[in-house]
């Protein structure tokens, strides 16, 4: 790792699908930066854009939504709903001068251990390139 602290990433996972996938990455001892933390929710369609903004304003450099994709057991249009929330959140972020690249979303399945670890390494690298967050307003 470089001298500057690794970017902090908040991941929203889903209890039944992406969180088990993230667990599996750990069970297989796949490494990704320890500055990645995960909060699980039942379904990615339930994530409020204001939570994402709050995370970026309280110390996270990026937010990653590990969504259910087509596998969601709750909502057939889960992917569309989550994508809509991402758009809304990026609008809120733009108002605060935060780059849209600080929010990413990808479907992570319950056995997607390696893809998850890869997403995290790549996102951390992209955020490092982007540089530190603009100083929070207010």
């Amino acid at each position, binding site marked *: 790792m470089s001298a500057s602290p*690794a970017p902090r990433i*908040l991941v929203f996972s889903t*209890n*039944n*699908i992406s*969180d*088990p996938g*993230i*667990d*599996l*990455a*750990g*069970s*297989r*001892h*796949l*490494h*990704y*930066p*320890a*500055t*990645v*933390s*995960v*909060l*699980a*929710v*039942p*379904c990615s*369609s*339930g*994530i*409020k*854009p*204001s*939570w994402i903004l*709050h*995370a970026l304003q*309280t*110390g*996270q450099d990026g937010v990653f939504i590990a969504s259910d994709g087509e*596998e*969601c*057991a*709750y*909502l*057939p249009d*889960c992917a569309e*709903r989550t994508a809509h*929330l991402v758009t*809304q959140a990026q609008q809120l972020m733009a108002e605060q001068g935060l780059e849209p690249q600080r929010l990413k979303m990808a479907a992570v399945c*319950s*056995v997607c251990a390696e893809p998850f*670890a890869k997403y995290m390494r790549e996102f951390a690298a992209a955020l490092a390139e982007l540089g530190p967050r603009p100083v929070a307003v207010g």
Partner: protein
Amino acid sequence: MSENPQAAGEQGEAPRRIGVYICHCGGNISDYVDVAAVRAAIADDPDVVVATTTMFACADGQQHEMVRDIREQHLDGLVVASCSPKLHTTTFRGVSRRADLNPYAYTQVNIREQDSWAHSDDREGATQKAIALVTAGIAKTRLSTPLEPLRVETVPATMVVGGGVTGLRTAIGLADIGIAVILVEREAQLGGWLGRLGPTFPHDVPGRDQVARLLAEIAERPTITVLTNAELVGKTGSFGNYTAKVHVRSEAADELRQFQVGTFVIATGADVYQPEVGELGYGIEGVVTLAEFGTLVDEAAGGTLAWHGRRVRSIAYVYCVGNRQPEGNAYCSKFCCAATVHASLKVSRLDPTVRQFHLHRDVRAYGRYELLYTQSRERGSVYLRYPDDAPPEVERTADGRLAVTLVDALTGPDPITLPVDLVVLVTGMVPRENEALTTLLKLPTGDDGFYNEIHPKLRPVETVVDGVMIAGTCQGPKPATEAVSGGLAAVTQSAGILKRGFAELDPLVATVNEAACTGCGACLTTCPYDAISSYVCDTGQKALVSAANCKGCGGCVPVCPDDAIDLLGYTSAQMLAAIDGLATTGVPA
């Protein structure tokens, strides 16, 4: 903790009394995370009354201590930082319940799968992360409110998928305990692999006789519905009450049948490894797999062992074909050593003069199968060990026989060549191709392609998919004895879910804050389960969520322009507090 801006007092909340237990997991966590530093970092939180590390949080003794702490210290919140919530949420909710603490005041923090194991290369980083995760868990617990579980009726029926020995025995077990069974088999006939076998180890009872006995027992049980040429193609509904759709093929017309079931037992079995042509001589005349050899021996019963009309006087068995490979199937298939030793005993009974050479990497005839191994050596079988990285070579010789060359561990390093009439490749198991079913049920598979249980010791037949159990060789290679044990474990597990007649579900459903709701109606069309309706009160139209219909996804939460909907257990206040907790940078111990 000064760094937490959401300290209880500032929010005007009453102080809480939270117990925090940080688990070593016997080293699985503490080898990579400084658990004492985690404890020190959170111990001064004004709402944390008990903060302690523990070797195994899930151990009986520790659970008793937690119950005692909750009672004696009047705790009103519990945080256990250990493994994945998938493993022990139920355990510690149980601890809470036994101590008369509301189970939903408990938060499991995952510092193993999502911390120590994922960052085994970064102790400092993993420790800082554990502090942040535990802080977030405490923050969530601080804002928890007591909740009561929802009761749902369960259907006393189980769908067993797969009609091999495991599925058959499972069906009988379920029927005998009073649970109706729909047994779904993809093939035209029940019985699976075992149903095609002659005398099997260890007791020489033909596999097909064992299956015939099970089929007779099934015929006597009217509560078992058998569907052959059938596949499970649809699953909807919720825990304890699923609608299963089964596609049944028939010559007349295919049929889509529908059943209400409470649980599923998946017993779809495995396949045997099929060697590539050229692999250890496969494809050469006289080189056969264990399965092919088994048929040959059984057909010779009472006569002479022959291959294409020629009497077989010598045999070389090459063990571990397609298994225990550095690339490919790394696992051991468990049954093949015993099956081969047993086959060689059958050969020596047919003709004690047949010379038999077992070329192995080490013989894993474990437990009582050791007796078969001893017996085979007493009857003249010769065991030769070949190196892991130098498998034997098989060639056809000019005189029409076979030559097997190996470096024997005892007589090496010079290779020895054995002239034989027949070479048997001892092939293990491979996962069965079942992509449609795997996708339908969202069953997790391991690196090896077999289905994964939640925990090999603690929850050996349950999967992360609620109400779906796995048993037998679809879960991993094993002999029939162990496969059937798994089936019976799945019977018990199904009975545990279904025999009460109801199940308790998490009450983590959406609720509407009546005061904040403006009656705009934005949420009314958002729920596919029709859980949201509206009513009129003094202050106008308001939305209402039906707890019975709500699936707890939270999809309606961001739809409300007035932030009037919360998902219990994941309220906005809790999520924001958890996010603040995660922002914690570790406090030096």
